């Protein structure tokens, strides 16, 4: 038994060592850079610099864009996840496969091809032009950036919601109808509360990448809508200000941790809040 438990303990040790070296240590370095200046002296100046109006605006904007993208994803994804969950098992499998398929394509190139669609001389406007509409200015607007986020992360919202919905016991829906729920209240009082865990994980999976993206805003926003991700990337790749970049990353992590904690607190109630 002793020997066996030794093996069991040893089994996890490569993972533990790896985690310490490549998960924890790097985060310590982020903190280290965030709280030091270029010469390695302790300072808060990286954070005070972030309180300039311009950076605050970037943070605000990123939070708003990510928030809107998440809300839109939820609104779009919920019905489709529901419809898919209602379909026959075989159809369901195919539809879910189709939802996931785009994620296998490189996201850079998919975002890039949105440019061809949205430009003033792009495909959509050319198409509308046939009917004498437009051109509608779409690219390089806030809307285009949010569209890019919604497009890229929509499957991350559909899949968790679908997987919860498809597991909802049909008899619960019958029970609700039996007790007097009309089709609408069946959804609001039973289906929706039961799918809250899926919604929560969908929100997480959309919000986190949306708030930290740096490619979508550059391509679809024309460099006019810098987000946290763009700013961090610039600090590391061109401006060569690791310390400022690290402090931004630190704040970004804080924003995410705080918003996730708030959300999970509500989620702990298991959607009971809504009822």
């Amino acid at each position, binding site marked *: 038994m002793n020997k066996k438990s030794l093996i069991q303990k040893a089994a996890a040790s490569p993972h533990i060592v790896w985690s310490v070296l490549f998960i924890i240590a790097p985060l310590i370095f982020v903190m280290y850079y965030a709280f030091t200046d270029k010469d390695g002296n302790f300072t808060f100046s990286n954070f005070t610099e972030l309180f300039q109006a311009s*950076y605050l605006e970037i943070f605000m904007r990123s939070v708003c864009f990510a928030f809107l993208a998440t809300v839109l994803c939820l609104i779009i994804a919920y019905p489709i996840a529901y419809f898919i969950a209602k379909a026959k098992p075989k159809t369901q499998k195919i539809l879910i496969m189709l939802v996931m398929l785009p994620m*296998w394509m490189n996201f850079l190139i998919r975002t890039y091809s949105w440019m061809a669609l949205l430009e003033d001389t792009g495909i959509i406007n050319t198409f509308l032009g046939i009917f004498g509409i437009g051109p509608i200015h779409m690219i390089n607007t*806030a809307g285009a950036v949010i569209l890019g986020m919604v497009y890229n992360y929509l499957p991350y919202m559909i899949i968790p919601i679908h997987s919860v919905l498809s597991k909802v016991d049909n008899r619960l829906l019958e029970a609700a109808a039996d007790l007097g729920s009309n089709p609408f209240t069946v959804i609001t009082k039973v289906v929706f509360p039961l799918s809250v865990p899926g919604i929560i994980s969908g929100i997480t999976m959309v919000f986190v990448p949306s708030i930290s993206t740096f490619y979508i805003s550059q391509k679809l926003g024309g*460099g006019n809508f810098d987000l946290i991700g763009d700013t961090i990337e610039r600090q590391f790749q061109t401006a060569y200000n690791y310390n400022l970049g690290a402090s931004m990353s630190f704040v970004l992590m804080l924003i995410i941790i705080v918003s996730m904690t708030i959300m999970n607190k509500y989620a702990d109630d298991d959607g009971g809040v809504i009822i």
Partner: protein
Amino acid sequence: MKKTSKIYTSLIFIFLYLPIAVLILFSFNSSNSTNSMAGFSFKWYKELFSDGATLLALRNTLILAILSAIIATVIGTLAAYGISRMKNKHVKNTILTVNNIPMMNPEIVVGISMMLLFVFVGRMINTSSTLGFGTVLIAHVTFNIPYVVLSVMPKFKQMDRHLPEAALDLGCTPFQSFYKVEMPQIISGVISGFIMAFTLSIDDFIISYFTIGSGFETLPIRIYSMTKKRVTPDMYALSALIFLSILILLIISNFTGNSNTVKDKKPVTLKQKKTKRIVIASTFAAIAVITGAVFISTATAETVVVNVYNWGEYISDGSNDSYDSIGAFEEYYSDVLTEEKGHKVKVQVNYTTFTSNEDLYAKMKSGVGGYDVIVPSDYMIERLKNEGLIQPLDLNNIPNYKYIKDQFKKPFYDNGEETYSVMYTYGIVGIIYNTKYVDEADIGGWDLLWNNKYSGHILQFNNARDAFGSAMYKLGISVNNATETEWRTALGELKKQKPLVQSYVMDEIYNKLESEEAWIGAYYAGDALTMMYNNENLAFYYPKNQKGEFATNIFADAMCIPAGVDSESKKHAEAFINFMLSEEAAIANAEYIYYGSPNSLVTENSDYKEYLGDDYYVIYDPDIENNIDTLFSGYAYRNLSADKLALLNNLWEELKVDSSSFSGGIYIISGVIALGITGFIVFCYVNKVRRRRMYWSKNAKNSK
């Protein structure tokens, strides 16, 4: 499904597949545009298979994905076993929390945190090439492990603890018990963990972007550097092929996989089991073959590697039937070395690209490059030299240096005793405009970039120095000796311009101007000619400042060798530089890049003159040719002092984040929605508490 739901579902799928349809469509485009269809052709598919760099990137991506997935699967499976058998809840939860960090943390933070670690370690052990294949591999394994752990853990949890005991009881040895009983229980989790890791790794861009170094380029990284400029349709062709193969794979797996749904509980037939096994076996066989092939192909004779870091699309690389100067060098130099050493030597050039001098500087400064030859611009060379980041060249190893014309031999940025650089190209910034939309009366000066009439169709540099340069040339401020107030004046000018600007671009300018998406932009003369060749409505001029004087940037890019390169590698690097100065390579590059060449072998070549035609006199404007020294001293960017640089960076940040009225509406909408949601939650919560209070209070009474 009802009708409305069918319509809705179809709409969403159209949304999801629209961009993919677009890229598949354009992969058949007969021109190289990615936003207007000229005709149908397969040429990009042909092109793809002759594009060595892309195929190499594809191969690298596969190696990386397979290796990282295997390592992550081994570590992750062991960890899942260990963790699931752990008794101490506290330790268990801590490990799982740490395990989740790479999944929950934004990718960019994971990327930069690892980069900081690698840079730090690199400095400690004082190496010039920390980042590379090893670091990306570590990064990929790191973000893969959590997914493996998460997909294997439940299998261990579900497994009946008595199963191994039952196996032992029935006469299995412990090994047999693991192999015959435990293994089949967890194998599905292990496989799905492996597949997930493999997929994530293939698709990863952000984390690779921060942890990748010289000599190793993955497909997403290559796509990224291409999208900074122009994605050629062969990339679309590759994507279309990838899409198709995944689609086929999924269809096969869907039809062979037993559809054991609740509805049709048909038993798995032996045949189905067999096909399933064949599919799994062949998948693994394919993976094994690819890995094997890769290892065999990399493990050949002695290999000399030269890492070259150049601007994107800045060398004649064999595409479109052009001369492949890298391949030619590899061939030529391996012959030279083989003869010299008396045994077979293979020369391999790892060619990677950057998009700005600042990118390059960041890489050099962090000591993560591992490059042997770099091609920075004038002011950056001055800066790198001052900071000791490049080393003097041994001109004895570069005999072709003699062909560089005298006026380019001691440029302002490198006019000391030692020679640090060999000029590669030079060029002048001009303004490109579309004659269809722009009034001829408005042209001539930098003012055109500030002209209200063309609001929303103007492009500005997405690069601090050039963007500020445009404002400063316009205002007649010295780009090198400006005071802080003058810098701020320039910022004011740029802020004024911002509402008119369509977007801030670098190489994306090609597409935007050629497609007539934008009408006006400043860029380099050679590039302007390329654009004019693709769209005949475009025209070009060298701009003047408000006083009517000729005022624009002139630049030179030159080949240098970083300080950390050892003497052996330096010799190879110099051989590379020398080769690039030889007639055939130099002419091919000059024809490909379309910038001015300082090489007399080029400028005096009659074929080259014929090739350029009238353009020859745009590029080699006699006025410029004769006054190159004065031009360089008057208009080229010089290295700025540290505080001016910091100021420039700050002002650039200020410009970039300045957004007078852009997002106001967004804030209001977000605010309203957020308020709505909060209100709703509070309402529900209050309601719930109100309801519950009833039976809480009554119950309390009753129990008393």
